[in-house]
């Protein structure tokens, strides 16, 4: 590594919202993520792409420590949020997850009312002092998730009664109601039809203003449409990361090239 690139990397690290160095993940014996150095910049959308099983979800779940739930899953290396080590013993995962929200592949609203779905996070984190404040948080979250117009007359109806796309936007509203700094999205559109997908993509672009977003996607078009930076994973390794434009037009690594031109995947 030349002095120049080392300095650049240091600068990157200071810019980064989430920064990982030499992150390894083991599921028992299986080495699922290998020596990943990746910086995720604030107020940008970073797309993680790569063939199935290459470790995209695994990396994503390292950031909010959802991997803690998996038995015999071990994470090594350093991963920091705003410079603070996420895996430090002093870190409380409850607080971490309030700062790093997550949207899952399959929409998973609680089988409760639309209102309660969004209000749950603020409630458990004590973010609203009274009912009026809670109403305010719920309304603005639904508004920002672009769902308010569709559901404002039926806030008491179950969230599970919405369409798939609406459910996913409800899950996004639920995540942003906690005012996280980072939102992790694991293939958020893979269960949605094209129209719902377009709406969610539009929403992601708007959310970038206030949040740092990391999105795993199987669709290269989607990565190209919504992200500013793209990271390409292969067999547990981070092969290449760069501006989305550059990755798609001028990939440096032959594997990246092969993947984006559809030679494998």
């Amino acid at each position, binding site marked *: 590594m030349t002095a120049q690139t080392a300095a650049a990397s240091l600068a990157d690290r200071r810019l980064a919202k989430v920064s990982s160095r030499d992150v390894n993940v083991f599921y028992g014996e299986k080495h699922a993520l290998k020596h990943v150095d990746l910086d995720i910049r604030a107020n940008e959308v970073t797309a993680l792409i790569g063939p199935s099983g290459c470790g995209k979800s695994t990396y994503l779940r390292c950031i*909010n420590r*959802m991997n803690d*739930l998996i*038995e015999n899953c071990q994470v090594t290396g350093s991963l920091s949020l705003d410079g603070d080590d996420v895996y430090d013993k002093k870190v409380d*995962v*409850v*607080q*971490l*997850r*309030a700062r790093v*929200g*997550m949207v*899952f592949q*399959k929409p*998973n*609203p*609680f*089988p409760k009312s639309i209102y309660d779905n969004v209000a*749950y*996070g603020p409630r*458990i*984190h004590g973010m609203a002092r009274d009912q009026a404040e809670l109403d305010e948080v719920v309304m603005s979250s639904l508004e920002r998730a672009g769902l308010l117009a569709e559901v404002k007359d039926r806030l008491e109806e*179950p969230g*599970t009664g919405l369409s798939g796309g609406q459910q996913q936007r409800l*899950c996004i509203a*639920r*995540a942003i109601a*906690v005012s996280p700094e980072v939102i992790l999205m694991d293939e958020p559109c893979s269960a949605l039809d094209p129209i719902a997908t377009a709406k969610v993509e539009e929403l992601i672009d708007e959310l970038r203003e206030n949040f740092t977003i990391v999105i795993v996607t199987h669709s290269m078009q989607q990565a190209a449409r919504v992200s500013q930076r793209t990271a390409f994973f292969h067999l547990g390794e981070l092969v290449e990361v760069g501006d989305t434009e550059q990755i798609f037009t001028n990939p440096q690594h032959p594997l990246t090239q092969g993947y984006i031109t559809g030679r494998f995947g």
Partner: protein
Amino acid sequence: MAENSSLVRSTPAAMAARLKRRYAAETRFRLAGITAIALALGFLATLIFTIFSNGLTAFVQTSVKVEVAFDPEVLGIGNDRSPDALAGANYGQVIKESLYKQFPTVEGRSERRELVGLVSSGADITLRKMLAANPALIGTTQSVWLIAGDDIDMAMKGHISRTPGADGNRLTDRQLGWIGDLERQGAIRKGFNTTLFTTGDSREPELAGLWGAVVGSFFSLSITLIVCFPLGVATAVYLEEFAPKNKWTDIIEVNINNLAAVPSVVFGLLGLAIFLNFFGMPRSAPLVGGLVLALISLPTIIIAGRAALKAVPPSIREAALGLGASKQQMVTDHVLPLAMPGILTGTILGMAHALGETAPLLMIGMVAFIVDIPASPMDPAAVLPVQVYLWADSPERAFVERTSAAIMVLLFFLGMMNLAAILLRKKFERRW
């Protein structure tokens, strides 16, 4: 080449023969299944038919109309009208005198004893209640319907023959004649058997009731529920959601599953040793019965609870944890409410199982003859299945129908509980 092809492809005739054999085998298989089901249904129908044909008549009771003269002299109370005097009055004598007057031709000690045998030896209670409610009746003559003796009742219901001199007839020819007389006068009738549903056990079948056993079962099951439900749910939640998966929890899991298969009588012995001998709790009490039944139902509830918790999809857990809920918040806010219908269904079925248990309760002395209706779980009591057992053991013909009636009441409660479980399951079927 020709040989070879015959190996690979059989001739149409061989194929047809094989097909025929296959169809025949399938037909036999189906026939066996249908026979088995028919047999099972046949047994069930026989059982139900026997119980109903034996037991339905227990819901009615014969009574005899007697012109009762409330003579203060016969009552032996003189001018005393105090409640104490009324309670201690000689109502039996009043009934006797009234009957003698109604059948003036009856004379001689044995004949008169036969006459008095028309009404139940417990019929005086009716009169005592009448006077307690209205002392002004003293000195008057009233038509009163008195409970008939059990043999009269059996004859009226056709369970024993009314042909004079028939084999095994416990009624004398004279008594049969009097029944005929009463029928002609319209002074004998069958009405709804309220005694069965309002009183406790009795040596006299016509006075024996199920209410004591129903209350005893209710107390026992209440204790069982109070102990079992919180303990079972807490265990299930801990094992399913919090416990680390290691050798110890594996051993615990295996043992819980094994406990569910332990013969219930063993739990009875355990209860005898622990609750009665060690803690010195009262014998025959629903408190102890309930605790023993709790031991029996606990594994069932834990297993049902764990299954219900396991059925809550992981996506709901991830959603809660992803929002920053603690594990405990995840369980109490989301997982447990979603698992609750399943847990409740399992609990109801466990309770239904406990309701039908007999053997372990015999171990802790819940087989005593108890007349009083228990007022608390500490009082000695019978429970429904034990009542069935006790009555089934009694020689009187009238207890046969009451045994069947008790079984019907027990089955009714079991049916209601199972119905509740089914409705609950239907109502809350998978909503995510």
